[in-house]
């Protein structure tokens, strides 16, 4: 093994997906001289490398790009800077004092100390283990993301007749992808009465190819010994329990699971970052700083995003503030305002606002259930700001609202985001 190296950086970014790329660039552009980006894969780009479909960059570049093209634009920018990129390097530990331990194929063990750290490790997929479907564990069960990787990166088709459990975006995208590659996608089965994916994906991935979506249904049994031979699915009641007598059988050789992503926060926990039980990601203030001074979080590590454009925006915010923190220019007041998810709001981010100099604060949130028309309002302590009508609210689509600086200035305790149904 190569001998241990000790390195010092102003800003160290962990993860080279769109969040990490944006954070590293923003840190560099905002005066951080020594910036490192550490990525465990052999290439930068994160999950975008396998998202070959288009639909990225509509907000940020005002054009529709594929995932790899979107990543490429940022990777090229990074190559023009002096940002040090460590590929094939996995971070295994971060301390509260911002000491990073990493293992690299090329350098062996690395010890890096950084004045500021940006967590940008993205997310991982929920698996069947979390689901408990009866049946043996035959071959032919994949998470949708694994299948996506096999088809789009390895060039290998994992099956020919497919059922997809869960209507998350990856599942919808894979329904189309596998159909185009000649597989028969029999159905997408969703436990909830609505889809967790973007409406545009339902249209372009299912409707375009006449793939049925069974809402309020679930898979109750997986058949087959060495390979999947079929599945049984059934309707569920309001408590999401299968209704006896509604079972149906579908013959298939492959079951894809698209039941959601979980922020990847094993490292965050190690350095003492506090997590939000709902988002699964660190609690952050409007500068994307966690409870640990000098440690920032952005992208899917903070909360699961459906649009990469907002991941980039968050990454830039985190990177810029990490650069300020590295210069000792980021003060955190003792008293922070809390942002509270009110009626019909499942979560908010940031969860905290460092009030001093809080200017254009944007709050991201998700609604708890679908709503055709909702009245969105923000309470500053108890004073209500302007309310707005939002249409077609759905848990699968992240919403954002800007806070009113004047009202925020007078706020002493908290800001509540709430949505009331409008008929």
């Amino acid at each position, binding site marked *: 093994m190569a001998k241990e190296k000790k390195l010092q950086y102003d800003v160290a970014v962990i993860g080279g997906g769109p969040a990490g790329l944006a954070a590293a660039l923003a840190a560099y552009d905002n005066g951080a001289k020594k910036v490192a980006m550490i990525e465990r894969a052999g290439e930068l780009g994160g999950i975008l490398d396998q998202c070959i479909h*288009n*639909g990225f960059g*509509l907000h940020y570049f005002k054009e529709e790009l*594929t995932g790899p*093209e979107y990543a490429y634009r940022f990777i090229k920018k990074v190559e023009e800077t002096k940002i040090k990129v460590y590929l094939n390097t996995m971070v295994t530990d971060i301390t509260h004092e911002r000491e990073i331990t990493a293992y690299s194929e090329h350098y062996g063990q690395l010890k890096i100390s950084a004045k500021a750290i940006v967590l940008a490790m993205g997310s991982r997929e929920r698996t069947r283990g979390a689901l408990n479907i009866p049946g043996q564990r035959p071959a032919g069960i994949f998470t949708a993301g694994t299948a996506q990787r096999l*088809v789009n990166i390895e060039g290998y088709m994992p099956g020919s007749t497919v059922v997809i459990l869960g209507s998350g975006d990856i599942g919808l995208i894979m329904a189309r992808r596998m159909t185009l590659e000649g597989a028969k996608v029999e159905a997408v089965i969703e436990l909830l009465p609505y889809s967790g994916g973007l409406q*545009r994906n339902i*249209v372009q991935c299912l409707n375009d190819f006449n793939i049925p979506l069974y809402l309020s249904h679930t898979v109750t049994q997986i058949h087959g010994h060495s390979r999947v031979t079929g599945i049984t699915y059934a309707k569920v009641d309001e408590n999401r329990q299968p209704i006896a007598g509604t079972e149906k059988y579908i013959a298939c050789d492959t079951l894809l699971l698209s039941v959601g992503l979980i922020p990847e926060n094993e490292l965050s926990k190690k350095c003492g970052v506090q997590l939000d039980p709902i988002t699964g990601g660190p609690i952050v203030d409007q500068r994307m700083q966690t409870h640990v001074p000098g440690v920032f979080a952005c992208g899917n590590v903070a909360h699961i995003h459906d649009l990469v454009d907002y991941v980039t925006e968050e990454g830039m915010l985190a990177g810029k503030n990490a650069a300020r923190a590295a210069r000792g220019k980021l003060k955190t007041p003792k008293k922070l305002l809390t942002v509270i998810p009110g009626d019909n709001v499942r979560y908010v981010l940031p969860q905290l606002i460092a009030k001093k100099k809080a200017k254009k604060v944007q709050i991201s949130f998700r609604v708890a259930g679908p709503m055709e028309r909702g009245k969105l309002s923000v309470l500053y302590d108890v004073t209500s700001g302007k309310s707005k009508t939002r249409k077609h609210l759905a848990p699968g689509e992240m919403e954002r609202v800007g806070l009113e600086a004047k009202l925020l200035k007078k706020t002493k305790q908290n800001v509540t985001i709430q949505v009331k149904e409008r008929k």
Partner: protein
Amino acid sequence: MTIKEQTITCTVCPKGCRVTVTYDDNGEVKKITGNSCSRGEKYARNELVDPKRVLTSTVRVVGGVKPVVSVKTDAPVSLKKMMECMTAINTLRPNAPVKMGEVLMQNIAGTSANVVATSETETA
């Protein structure tokens, strides 16, 4: 004459407006509502007659570091022609290296769209 109505989700931008098109037996559009911008109107009109999508896929590369590169059509192609386009794309076997944006096939299935690489690979 009967008047029909169809609601289409505009997919031009992530806003996903529900655009309602009212049209008569001859397919003549009478009214379009629900769109937030003019692109939505154009999209909805086209959806009624001939929906088009950008097609994305992968092609196998000969002698590359990576086994496949991703590709897209540089213009939307008719949904009716999707499978025909896929058959054409699957005949492609470019030699490495493949560069980002490289045109790998012109005028795919007579659609006048070209197939371009959206990722790249070096020679192994």
